[in-house]
């Protein structure tokens, strides 16, 4: 299936910004199952510098800077994505979770060695005893890894309430765990913390979710939000995505923008600026299906 995505971020400043340096992580990647066929980044005002680089995870990052006063910044990412649904998984045949953990602890192949980086703590994700205890219920001895993760995903979905007013970006995972509420970002960080505390490798995936049109109505432009979910490393099989917010294994409706250790690695726009006073931000995302392929599996 082919989708076109429009992701617009607008900043308004109370005073002029004199200098600003920013990085945008908005260009969707290409990997088995997804290919980015076209990408344009529109920036207003026109920056004095603008250049892409590839980060350690393989994401394409755009650096752009300003040295003239401006009081509004609009960044619009336009992409065209081809997405094929991943092959169905059979959780029962995946390796036991302890075996998976040990293969990361004493890695002997390249794939496992690279995955080790997603077992370590990162700025937003700490090893937490409480998260480990929560996760343990889904990880009885000998259970196949993917079966355990499916169970954990379902428990986060049922035990936690989706509540955009409950948390902010800075809310620590431990608080999310105690209050049992949060948004997709919180649930992703929580699940990653659970998995890493057990010695497993998990990464943070940022992207878009194609929401359905209301029955009988046309799909609203701008109703789609950017979304976040996780991916877990299964030795011998590779990375498998899970969405704790929707209790599902992402298919063609989940479009991947980037992945990293946590939100901090893949924040859509980061920046440091001088001047500006207070600033307000608004985001509008619009995902449209362009063409449907009849796929026979």
């Amino acid at each position, binding site marked *: 299936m082919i989708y076109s995505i429009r992701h617009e971020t607008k900043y308004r400043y109370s005073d002029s910004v*004199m200098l600003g340096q920013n990085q945008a992580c908005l260009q969707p990647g290409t990997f088995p199952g997804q290919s980015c066929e076209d990408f344009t980044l529109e920036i207003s005002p026109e920056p004095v510098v603008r250049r892409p680089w590839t980060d350690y995870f393989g994401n394409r990052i755009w650096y752009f800077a300003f040295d003239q006063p401006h009081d509004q910044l609009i960044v619009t990412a336009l992409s065209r994505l081809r997405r094929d649904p991943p092959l169905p998984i059979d959780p029962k045949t995946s390796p036991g979770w302890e075996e998976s953990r040990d293969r990361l602890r*004493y*890695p002997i192949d390249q794939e496992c*060695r690279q995955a080790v980086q997603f077992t370590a703590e990162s700025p937003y994700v700490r090893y937490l005893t409480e998260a480990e205890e929560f996760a343990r219920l889904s990880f009885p001895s000998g259970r196949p890894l993917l079966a355990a993760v499916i169970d954990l995903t379902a428990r986060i979905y049922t035990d936690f309430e989706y509540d955009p007013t409950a948390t902010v970006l800075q809310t620590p995972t431990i608080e999310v765990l105690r209050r049992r509420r949060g948004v997709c970002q919180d649930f992703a960080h929580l699940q990653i913390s659970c998995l890493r505390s057990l010695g497993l490798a998990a990464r943070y995936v940022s992207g878009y979710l194609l929401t359905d049109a209301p029955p009988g109505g046309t799909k609203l432009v701008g109703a789609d939000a950017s979304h976040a979910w996780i991916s877990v490393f299964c030795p011998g099989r590779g990375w498998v995505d899970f969405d704790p917010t929707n209790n599902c294994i992402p298919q063609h409706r989940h479009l991947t923008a980037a992945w990293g250790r946590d939100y901090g690695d893949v924040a859509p726009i980061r920046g440091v600026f001088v001047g500006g006073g207070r600033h307000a931000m608004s985001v509008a995302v619009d995902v449209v299906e362009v063409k449907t392929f009849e796929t026979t599996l």
Partner: protein
Amino acid sequence: MQQPGTVSAHPTGSLLSAYQPEVTSYDEMVDASGRLRPAWARFAQSWDGLGPARLSQRNQQAQRLFRENGVTYNVYGASRELERPWELDPLPLLFPVADWSRLSAGIEQRARLFNALMADVYGHQRAFQSGVLPAAILFQSPGFLLPCHGIQPTGNVFLHWYGAQLSRRTDGTWQVVSDRTQGPSGAGYAVENRIVVSRTWPQDFEDLNVIRLASFYMSLRESLKALSPRHGDNPRAVLLSPGSRSPRYFEDVYLARYLGYALVEGDDLTVRRDGVFLKTLGGLLPVDMILRRVRDTGCDPLDLRPDVKTGVAGLVQAARCGQVLLANALGASFLETPALHAFLPGLCRFLLNEDLMLPSSPIWWCGDPDDQKVVEERFSELLIRPAFRQRPDQGVESANHDDAPPLPLDHPERWLGGPHIVGQLSAVERQSLWKAVGARPEQFVAQELIQSSTAPVWDGDRLKPWHVTLRTFAVSSGRGYRVLPGGMARVAPRMDMLAESVTAGQRSKDVWVLADGPVERVSLLHSQTVTLELQRSTNDLPSRAGDHLFWLGRLMERTEAVVRHLRCIVVRLTSELQPSGPTEMAVLVAALSESTGLKLDKWLQRLAVKSPTVEAEVWSEIRRTTRSYLTDATRFGSLTQTLRSAQAAAAIVRDRISLDGWRIISQLTFRMDDNDVIDLGQALLPLNRLLAGISAFHGLCSDSMTRGPGWRFLDIGRRIERGLQILHFVNTILVDGRVEILPQLEAMLEIADSSMTYRYRYLTSLQLAPVLDLIIADETNPRSVAFQFATLADHVRQLSAGRSSHAINHEQQLVLEAQGRLRLIDVDALCEIGGDRKRQALKTFQKNVTNELMNLSDAIMHTYLTHTVAPQQLGGLPPELEEDER
């Protein structure tokens, strides 16, 4: 066995025979049989010849030199240890050149290994892909910075500058205790120690053929220059310092001076489209090389740590584009990862195809099952510490951790601090620690307790064997590294007092490497290879430094005004020659406060009662207030408080003040012997001394400072403050018409240091109008308000000379207006007293001129100094950041 040609001997004199090192450690001076080692024989016997009395004398001489050079000065009162890490022991540590060469070959190899390792982990990662370096070591280390991967520095040199902390094992071999790769501390102290100790022993220094240090620093400078990405012969290099609050600031200043680099902080630099620039009064100047003394994480809030305010946003981008040379390259903190030590022998064979010559102190990474087994067997004799968390370089930060209550034994974070000496733990604690290791083995390393040698230390009346560790340095040079022929040794009576940080230990020692023959003399100031381009005063003063100099000027002038004011009061309160009534004194003392009105009104009301008891009470209050303005450091505007602020301001721009100037400022003090409120007379002498000191500083500035922008901002601050002070006195002393005017005029002239001129012009007839003319309008009197404006007019004109616009600017306009007002002054009209018994015209005039002066000050700040706005973050910060990483 005595080697032929050496003078090894059993000690004979009393000093040496009383020196009895522990038999369990290696001693640097005497061998196991009690003989002096050959390198020490001659020097040690000369100590014996001198005897305790003269050795003490030498020691005192060394301490004096050390103090005068500013090493021991501390700025911030309470945190004394910040600037006073240790005392200096006058006896150097000696090495024959042959022994040193073996050691330095090991250090050179280690530096090369680290450079190759950095090139590997930030490049193709072969070491990790082949399994020589475990994946966990790379990815668990907070020092491995993902945004720095793929950055290729000029000449493939990542590590330009390396410091090794060494100790000698009981068998006499050396081992590395820790590595320092982020602007290692100690190289500046080593030079400082050398200067003092070589002056303490001038003859021995010559006779023993001590190898000089200077050429080492020259090669650092040359090597960086050769690698500079641009500007061929004359690249601009800066030393990036964390700032004057850093415990290492002394060294930053020292090294910057010694290397001839501009000393800058993160705020001074900015990344623009084609690179890194220094923000100066003359505009932006391109920077080619940054010798950094700032940790990796503090370098770039955009790419590295968003919560750190200090860095230069975009620096990683600039490095990625090859626009600037960073020494060391960003990401070097990975090399300080404790667990890495366990893999250095294998990495050395893999990356260099050589055997590691200089080992680390034995270490085991518990993430490896075999190592974990060893650790289990030898648990009770080891030291357990975090495998990845790096310890802060300063004793100050770790001190904070001691205050926190200990976590419960089973808390997962309980054992992640450290190090923990297992032998010192209870059985229960050991069990709990071992459980923590078992739960996350990869997070721990185990080490043997550090062994160290002993060396003689002068202890007042005899030599004592203290434990010693050595820090030395290597700099990149062509294809390899050059090792400092010396270093800095630290000594303490017990081994456990020598933690890894450079500030630990009780004293430091110079390190002398003795050549076999005469040595070449070098100084950094004489470089024969390059002809220097002639330079005159430039505009490359960082705006931040201009700002601080401006404030130094203001605070020094304010101190002077406070001293003169207090002296004027003290003289009147203690001498019979200048009797003053309580009303006059009340006015003078109330003027000490910024807001004079309330207190004065109360005093005057009470005095109006004309009761002797009330008057006595007021007198005593006047004395107490005076006393408190002399000594109360917590009182705003007091002498002690003002003086401290001035000294703190000076400390921030210490690199811009000459050594003599710094010496004068740092020695300014005001002390009264006891708390006797009645006898204020004893304050006179220290006040006069203080005034002499302040005058000496001003004299030095006008005599020795080049008339560049630095001097100009210092003087602008001084002129603005002096004008404001005179106007303040006019307002507080002369406006009130209720008070007898003659004593006030006397005081005014005294405070404005204009009595002599007045008497010369008008003899003894004291009147308000001529006094006002002299202290406000007379442009020839350096204490008058008009004189300050005339001088400011010149500064403003000179500063704008280099700027593009030909029209007169805002500052010039302000000065001209004020000068016009002062020239048209009608002093007689200002003398009139209005219906409210106040000289309202004088008050209005005073207020207007004060406003003009403040507006001028704001305008100058705005035009030249406002690059200093704090940057903001777009988006959020991570939640749980650990204190020790900040």
